[in-house]
């Protein structure tokens, strides 16, 4: 059973309407967005998404002329207890794995976090050993539709 999932990443110039156009392109391709985060520099942005069908997402975006790729990440269910996200991060860092970025998303009762590490497999293993609950791919891709 794999606990790493595919995130859809898209390069965006800081131009009006680009984000909207990506969302429309995905919508037209029947690709649903579960979680989304936008990181940006002064000139461009990086849109990172957990979607219902990552491979299809890359395909429809590339066809529409976007630079899109899949990135291996882990999705963590964050328990409702103070300091639990911090504990999860420590569990990863103790194995020597670096966390490159993360973003959180709320999902009904649950709070969840997407983590990009330089070694996703190893980070997932460490988290599981420490008793954290990770989403499996199918579960993550179909969680909630934005």
């Amino acid at each position, binding site marked *: 059973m794999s606990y790493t999932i595919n995130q859809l990443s898209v*390069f965006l110039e800081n131009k009006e309407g680009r984000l909207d156009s990506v969302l429309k392109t995905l919508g037209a391709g029947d690709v649903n967005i579960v979680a989304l985060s936008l*990181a940006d*520099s002064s000139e*461009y942005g*990086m849109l990172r998404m957990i979607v219902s069908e990552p491979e299809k997402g890359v395909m429809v975006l590339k066809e529409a002329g976007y*630079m899109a*790729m899949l990135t291996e990440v882990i999705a963590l269910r964050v328990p409702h207890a103070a300091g639990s996200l911090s504990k999860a991060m420590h569990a990863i860092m103790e194995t020597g794995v670096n966390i490159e970025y993360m973003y959180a998303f709320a999902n009904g009762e649950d709070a969840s976090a997407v983590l990009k590490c330089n070694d996703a497999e190893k980070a997932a293993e460490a988290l599981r050993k420490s008793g954290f609950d990770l989403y499996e791919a199918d579960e993550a891709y179909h969680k909630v539709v934005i």
Partner: protein
Amino acid sequence: MAKISLENWSEKIRDPEIECMSREEMKALQSEKLVKQVKNVYENVAFYRKKMDEAGVKPEDIRSIDDIGKLPFTTKEDLRENYPFGLLAVPQSKIARVQGTSGTTGKLTLASYTEKDVDVWGECVARALTMAGLTEEDKLHVCYGYGLFTGGMGLDLGARALGCMSIPMSSGNTQRQLMCMEDFGATAFACTPSYAMYLAEAAKEAGVVERLQLKAGINGAEPWTDEMRHQIEDTLNVNCFDIYGLCEITGPGVACDCIHHKGLHVYEDHFFPEVLNPVDHTPCAEGETGELVFTTLSKEGMPLIRYRTKDLTSIEYGKCECGRTLPRIQKFTGRTDDMKVIRGVNVFPTQVEAALLSIGEGVAPHYMMVVDRENNLDVLTVMVEVDEKYFSDEIRKLEALKKKIELALKQALGVAVKVKLCEPKSIQRSEGKAKRVIDNRNL
């Protein structure tokens, strides 16, 4: 058919007598032609008589090609002032066709050709096509524009002189170009290097490369780098050749490079080249860069004497490995008017291109230079399209890439550059001459 390696290449020379002539014989031929041409323009073109009289030069003073330095220059402004037919050496009834280019100033530069001028033009292009390995068995797909622009017509005349099939596609509609290329079994194609890049990309995307029968590309009319050539050659599995020309002199076919790519062989029996110091107009030493100046030795319709091309190059006279003794002009370092002076430093688009490609296979050669003036300081921004090969979803890595490009450009140009990463295919592709520089300074 496919790309042929240098070891397996067999050189064909259309006119060995001229193309492999000794330097002494060539000088004698050029001298004889120059003496005749100078006498002709002095007697038949008021403009030249006036210029020569002002310079105190009589036709008798020109006894050999070595006397060419005594003659006054002709410039693009002279052509404009004598537009459209002021420089003809024959009555208009002898003119078989005209060709022209539209300048940035709006007015056309018009060139007039007699029947014989058209034949010479076709013959020169046929020599170039032969140099690219074409024979009468070939099919040449021409996607240069037809019309006043010399590109389409020039290649067409060359195909006719060579006796091969011409497919006059003209420019535009890439899908249709690819369809006809495949259906008609074209073995060679002719277009600008930037369009060739575009076409190659499109052919690869459409998955038709395997079904094409191309072996050669004849790509000229704008500056390009060896890296660009390799990319087109590898994508389409062809050998590409650089053809040079300008409509004032004849159009494409003034010079072309051979399989050794050691510069473009100039057809100096018709177009006498000089490379002059851009500042004081004294002759440059062999291999030294200067402005290329042409004298048309055979032209009847609109002969040009010492025409300043504004193209910067150097010239080599040594015999080429292909067997030709025709001198070779090197790839242009730019045009005197394409050159941008940024904070006092001369910058050419070709330098940017070479630097972009040198930093790794990752960087696509699509770019655009934008020059602005902020707080009285010139700012050069180079927009570069991100490419799949190095794309990362980490901003840190993209920023590192940006810094790396900025450093490479700064080292190559000697001036600080801002790099802006852009989405793929967001920079305009051109089907004619590529526009690589936008200057917003209103100088």
